[in-house]
């Protein structure tokens, strides 16, 4: 395979395996816990029938059996029932609620970054603003989320989980996610740096002399790099979502993962991590497509030149 197709190809491959690598990893970690998994859920000293439980949850024949039966279930959309966090509720139901929520939260946060990136790339956003953004970026997401959470609870009280409150919650969460931990400032400075260095390239100067636009020349060449940057940022947002969701009590994947891990509700933990992996894989896929798209765009023959 020629070198220029290798990168996207590898990304595509990674995107396919990722959703199962993460749960696999976690299955391994579950078995690394002291004591066998079933007795973590229901210690024999406390309750009888631990073996029965182990069998019921495929915990009785070792990690591989557990993992494989989990995967075969997951492929048919059956993630089993939660046994601690929401006893008896199908985990799929929890996923259904959580994935869109987290996706929305991250997308909103991302929107902020994309606006910043566009501003930086097109020079709308003056570099003078960078220090301000950086200063705001110093505040950890936790602190922003904490204050927002307190305000929401006191303000909304019993209504604090009403649709309106949840919408506000999502907005505040996205804001915290986008602004804090240098997410926005990092994006802006990163994109600006990239575009400016491209603008300094001689071919862009010449393009101006040929009467062509700067961006139309520079953008296609920086697109793959930009896509890479944005993916890294989005991954960062995904990670941040865990903290923001827990603190702001947003019913997303991160909150699900946190609750599941604390309650050692393995079914929930696996499903939540699967959800995260799927989102992350989707990003990989997107990046690969952008790269392939750019490559094809570069190679396309103008007005169908027949060579």
């Amino acid at each position, binding site marked *: 395979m020629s070198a220029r197709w290798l990168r996207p190809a590898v990304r595509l491959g990674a995107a396919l395996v990722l959703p199962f690598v993460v749960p696999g990893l976690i299955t391994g970690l579950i078995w690394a816990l002291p004591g066998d998994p079933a007795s973590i859920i229901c210690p024999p000293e406390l309750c009888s029938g631990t073996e029965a439980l182990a069998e019921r949850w495929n915990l009785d024949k070792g990690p591989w059996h557990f993992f494989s039966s989990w995967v075969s279930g997951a492929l048919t959309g059956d993630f089993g029932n939660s046994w601690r966090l929401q006893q008896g509720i199908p985990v799929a139901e929890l996923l259904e609620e959580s994935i869109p929520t987290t996706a929305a939260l991250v997308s909103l946060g991302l929107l902020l970054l994309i606006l910043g990136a566009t501003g930086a790339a097109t020079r709308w956003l003056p570099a003078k603003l960078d220090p301000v953004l950086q200063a705001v970026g110093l505040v950890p997401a936790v602190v922003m989320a904490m204050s927002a959470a307190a305000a929401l609870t006191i303000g909304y009280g019993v209504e604090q989980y009403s649709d309106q409150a949840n919408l506000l919650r999502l907005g505040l969460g996205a804001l915290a996610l986008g602004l804090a931990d240098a997410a926005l400032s990092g994006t802006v400075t990163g994109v600006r740096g990239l575009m400016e260095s491209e603008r300094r390239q001689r*071919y862009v100067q010449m393009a101006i002399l*040929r*009467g062509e636009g700067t961006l139309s020349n520079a953008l*296609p*060449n920086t697109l793959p790099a930009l896509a890479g940057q944005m993916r890294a940022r989005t991954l960062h947002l995904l990670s941040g979502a865990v903290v923001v969701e827990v603190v702001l009590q947003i019913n997303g994947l991160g909150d699900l993962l946190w609750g599941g891990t604390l309650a050692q509700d393995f079914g929930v933990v696996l499903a939540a991590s699967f959800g995260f992996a799927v989102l992350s894989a989707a990003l990989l896929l997107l990046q690969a497509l952008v790269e392939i798209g750019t490559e094809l765009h*570069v190679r396309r*023959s*103008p007005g169908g030149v027949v*060579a």
Partner: protein
Amino acid sequence: MGDVHLVKLRNLTIRTHARQLVSEIDLDCYEGRVTALMGPSGSGKSLTARAVMGCLDVDPGLVDGTLHYPALDDRDWYAPVRGQGMRAQRRLLKDSAPLRGSYFTYSPQAASSALNPGRTLGQQLALAIRRRRQPPEDLSRAIRDLLSEVGLAPSDSRLLPSEMSGGMNQRAALAIAVAPLPRLVIADEPETGLDPVLTRGVIELMVDVCRDHRCGLLLISHHQQTVDKIADDVVHLPGVEVAP
């Protein structure tokens, strides 16, 4: 000199805060004629050429001079800029943008680094051709013709600059320059980075192509023999003395 007068530059004087870059330069370009701009390195050849295209990007920059494109109108393009500094010069850059790539085009030196590395020759030609006053029906045909004019194969249209030799790049640059059917081609040291044989080839080709297209050529060069051989008019830039 009955030919159409394309560029009438008078008394061009450009300086930075520290030094004079060019001073009191007069230059004329005519349709179908080759005007050579000569001078030692650092004498401001490229700067002058860019000034002809309305591209001024030094501060305070243009302090004196007038620029007319008689074939277009009798407007003095420098009038709003003289002594007005960077902002005015940026405005001029915007105002004159429509002319670049149509009234006159630019064929850069060291073309390999001057062409967009992310676009095939074909696309760059296509972009240039689309700037003609009447774009042709058959784009690909136009591209093929241009390529053969500068002695490149149609299949080369699929190559990226990085996949072509220095000579090919220079020919490509020329093709791109003449593609919009401009009135004037400004060629900036086409010989840079080429061996003598190639140099002669490229420059002769350039002259031929321009003659065929009946457009003027402003050739920036310090290659005396070539200039002697092909130039109709020659403008010498003196070496620059540092101002107090």
